[in-house]
């Protein structure tokens, strides 16, 4: 019987009512009295020297309030990077300045050159067109491998090269891995691209800066996943505003997916200009602007080698990756291809030796940073593709090859630093196979074949590290911040609770799921609990929402604060009922004394806390409000097994996704409805990466995919209904809720399923093409099929359940 309240229930989301009736309050819905509007003049060349900027005509236009260029930012810091990587030689990464407006050079299409503040957006836009910029174009640095050659033009003249860092992990394993690969019975090698993506939350970024003359304080309203982080970075490193004079508000935010983690120049500009002009300044990105100014994601070029012994045990993995940083270092950028990627290269397997080399490269493109999954999709894609390829080369069942190498003993210390606390990879694989009727695949494949279509089955596993993270560990790894989370639980006199959390909800439904946890702990109704987030004026310092961390870290902080509340409330109850603290029990919102019939309602105790007439004032302060900061001692490790069936039209190369199944282990689940929704959304983004989405530049650095006409977003007709399951739960062993996080899994696990499935379909038609780089557009699939023919040995999955398939 499903629960209808508390942990494990799926109550309807309370935030939905305002969203469904048009009463949401997104940043662009906020207008501050007297505000002016800013429009940025952005570079239309990828790389060039700025010889001069003539703003006179713009400044003379009626309605223009101010025109800004880099010259107006003397003494203002650059946009900081929050993570420092140390290279193989022990040197810090190369870290260029990222000015608010371009200084001397433009370095990517979209790099802001000047800003016009005016009475209206229209006037500002017109005035931007009146600015004359004299730029000498320079050759664009686009190809990562060419960019690190000695004669390559440099993105940053003051750096020694375009190489941000050359990172080895674990460097001490390098020789052992080389030796293992040399002596292996079989080595499968794969070169692949993890395609560059654009996160595309549906709400474009917006910033409204405001300045109060009376107390010299600034307020920034912004579309952020982590307002406290923005306050710290912008206040301390860019504008020099102390945190007590700076308030950052992130109200309803229309999706983030990582790209709204980072501190952006436009936020600093609006805050700065509001003070300069003593007027609120608002910026709303157009979608075209979002494409060329939101941090992009992925963009790795990798060679991976998997070594196996004669019994098909994995003995070593070696990778070499070129990771695009873009033109500047965005907030988390250096950590994505390193600590969020290298540490996952053991995957679900007991491979004893792993060596990961990453060369991070500056190019004349938009900065690249975390996008849903961030590093973990790249790791999963490499591993799950190379394992599938190895199975094909060795002529064995790809599921059995995986199973043979599964980690089965926990905790498990990987050779890549992290320790998996718990998991059961056989359980999710068993569940998956049950969900997809693998034995029936061959019949379905034949049915497709009878219609002239090639059907394929793609299966893979994934593991990820989320709930980031232990501050101590990330500090050692180069993070310039801690990664705890905070919560203040304020109990009001009449028994209701306000929970102020440093986590931020931008679609995840925290306002609904967080109260479920507290309601269970106290035994009161969820509607007595209000979640407040997204405002540095209310919530204690928190690190925000990304890396599937909100419930695992933020929820745990809230749990700890509520434990403190309950402990204090029990002392008050003990005093009133003249009993000992230890004898007090709290259940269903009532305090009872063990072994007696005495009881006291929750509301009686909360009232006593604020009207302390009969109260132990000598031992206890009045009031009932507690704060907790929770810093986990490990990451969490969600894992699972995914599968899809696809049909390829051999005439056109068009791929249709017929079904997709996901069996996930998220540990304990608080709200199954929300968890399933998160997986659905992640799957759509992963399938989007595999089949449709690609951020394309030409060789001159022009962004070709700069609108929804050119960047293919998955639409309703492109996707099937999903089968999702989270019943194989191994609760996290080190957080009080036993939860792992579910936000990114779908996007991490699904790209290899699709590619494995399409390659399986092609193989069933005799086209053993080895690999096709994402996105698998009809043109690419068709072209791959033309290059091969007649030599394939059929679908790997058909082989495992009834012998090789016949070629069409």
């Amino acid at each position: 019987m499903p629960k209808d309240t508390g942990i494990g229930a799926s109550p309807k989301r309370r935030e939905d009512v305002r969203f469904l009736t048009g009463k949401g309050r997104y940043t662009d819905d906020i207008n501050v009295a007297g505000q002016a509007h800013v429009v940025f003049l952005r570079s239309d060349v990828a790389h060039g020297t700025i010889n001069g900027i003539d703003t006179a005509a713009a400044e003379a236009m009626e309605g223009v309030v101010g025109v800004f260029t880099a010259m107006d930012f003397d003494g203002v810091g650059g946009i900081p990077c929050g993570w420092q990587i140390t290279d193989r030689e022990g040197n810090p990464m190369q870290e260029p300045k990222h000015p608010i407006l371009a200084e001397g050079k433009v370095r990517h299409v979209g790099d802001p050159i000047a800003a016009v503040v005016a009475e209206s957006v229209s006037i500002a836009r017109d005035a931007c067109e009146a600015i004359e910029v004299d730029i000498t174009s320079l050759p664009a640095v686009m190809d990562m491998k060419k960019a690190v050659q000695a004669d390559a033009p440099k993105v940053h003249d003051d750096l020694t090269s375009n190489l941000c860092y050359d990172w080895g992990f674990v460097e001490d394993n390098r020789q052992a891995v080389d030796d293992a690969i040399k002596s292996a019975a079989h080595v499968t090698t794969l070169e692949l691209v993890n395609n560059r993506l654009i996160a595309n939350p549906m709400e474009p970024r917006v910033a409204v800066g405001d300045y109060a003359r009376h107390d010299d304080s600034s307020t920034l309203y912004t579309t952020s996943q982590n307002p406290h982080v923005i306050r710290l970075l912008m206040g301390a490193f860019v504008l020099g505003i102390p945190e007590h004079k700076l308030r950052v508000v992130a109200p309803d935010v229309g999706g983030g997916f990582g790209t709204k983690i980072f501190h952006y120049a436009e936020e600093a500009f609006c805050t700065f200009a509001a003070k300069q002009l003593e007027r609120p300044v608002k910026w709303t990105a157009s979608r075209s602007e979002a494409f060329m100014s939101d941090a992009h994601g992925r963009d790795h070029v990798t060679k991976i080698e998997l070594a196996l012994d004669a019994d098909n045990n994995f003995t070593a993995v070696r990778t070499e990756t070129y990771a695009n940083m873009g033109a500047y270092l965005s907030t988390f950028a250096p950590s994505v291809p390193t600590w969020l990627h290298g540490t996952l290269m053991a995957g679900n397997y007991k491979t004893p030796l792993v060596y990961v080399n990453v060369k991070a490269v500056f190019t004349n493109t938009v900065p690249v940073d975390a996008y849903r999954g961030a590093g973990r999709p790249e790791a999963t894609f490499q591993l799950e593709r190379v394992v599938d390829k190895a199975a094909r080369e060795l002529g064995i069942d790809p599921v059995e090859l995986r199973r043979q190498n599964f980690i089965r003993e926990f905790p498990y210390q990987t050779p890549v630093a992290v320790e998996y606390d718990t998991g059961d990879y056989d359980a999710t694989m068993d569940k998956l196979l049950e969900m997809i009727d693998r034995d029936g695949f061959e019949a379905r494949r034949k049915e497709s074949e009878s219609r002239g279509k090639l059907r394929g089955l793609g299966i893979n596993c994934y593991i990820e590290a989320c709930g980031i993270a232990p501050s101590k560990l990330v500090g050692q790894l180069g993070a310039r911040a801690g990664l705890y989370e905070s919560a203040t639980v304020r109990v009001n006199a009449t028994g209701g609770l306000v929970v102020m959390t440093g986590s931020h909800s931008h679609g995840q439904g925290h306002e609904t799921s967080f109260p479920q946890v507290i309601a269970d702990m106290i035994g009161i109704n969820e509607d007595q609990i209000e979640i407040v987030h997204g405002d540095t004026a209310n919530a204690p310092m928190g690190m925000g929402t990304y890396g599937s961390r909100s419930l695992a870290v933020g929820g745990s902080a809230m749990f700890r604060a509520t434990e403190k509340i309950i402990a204090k409330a029990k002392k008050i109850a003990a005093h009133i009922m003249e009993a000992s603290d230890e004898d007090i029990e709290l259940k269903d919102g009532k305090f009872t004394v063990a072994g007696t019939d005495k009881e006291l309602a929750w509301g009686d105790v909360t009232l006593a806390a604020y009207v302390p007439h009969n109260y132990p004032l000598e031992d206890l302060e009045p009031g009932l409000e507690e704060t907790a900061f929770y810093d986990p001692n490990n990451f969490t490790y969600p894992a699972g097994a995914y599968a899809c069936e696809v049909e390829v039209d051999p005439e056109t190369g068009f791929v249709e996704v017929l079904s997709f199944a996901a069996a996930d282990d998220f540990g304990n689940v608080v709200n199954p409805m929300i968890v399933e929704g998160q997986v659905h959304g992640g799957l759509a983004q992963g399938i989007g990466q595999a089949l449709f989405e690609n951020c394309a530049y030409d060789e001159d650095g022009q962004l070709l995919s700069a609108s929804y006409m050119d960047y293919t977003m998955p639409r309703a007709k492109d996707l099937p209904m999903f089968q999702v399951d989270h019943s194989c739960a191994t609760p996290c062993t080190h957080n009080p809720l036993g939860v792992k996080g579910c936000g990114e899994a779908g996007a991490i696990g699904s790209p290899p399923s699709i590619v494995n499935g399409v390659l399986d379909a092609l193989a069933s038609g005799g086209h053993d093409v080895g690999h096709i780089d994402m996105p698998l557009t009809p043109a690419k699939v068709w072209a791959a099929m033309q290059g091969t023919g007649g030599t394939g040995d059929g679908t790997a999955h058909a082989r495992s359940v009834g012998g090789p398939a016949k070629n069409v």
Partner: protein
Amino acid sequence: MTKVTMTVNGKTRTAEAEGRTLLAEWLREGVRLTGTHIGCDTSQCGACVVHVNGEAVKACSVLAQEIDGAEVTTVEGMANADGSLGVIQQAFQDYHGLQCGFCTPGMVMSTAALLKDNPQPTEAEVRHYLEGNICRCTGYHNIVKAVMAASGQQVAPVAAE
């Protein structure tokens, strides 16, 4: 600037518009109905879908001055008279057909237009009709279920138990 008057959700509303002011901008800034969202600048995303004289229209593809005098319905006009959620809105909540809420107004308005023309659409028809509405959060799974449910058809419960 020209004064433009429309009947919005049953009320007469007047606000100024430049020649280039889009209906979406006029609704948001002119009459401060911010439920209609702007998610792109190429009429691709559908977040701004409203009904103009009974037809679903992307409000970023119409100039406000062009439709002076029109009857417009926005997401703010979709609740029941007593303020409770309308049938479509309720189905979106019941089936978790929204997450961040940004595409939701357009989804609700497109769904209303679909069900007016096709009261019992198939899953394929729903997916085809919603091609002009992009959602980045839900993978459309629960949106499709919500639309089917709003049309009175039986759908699977929201979370597999």
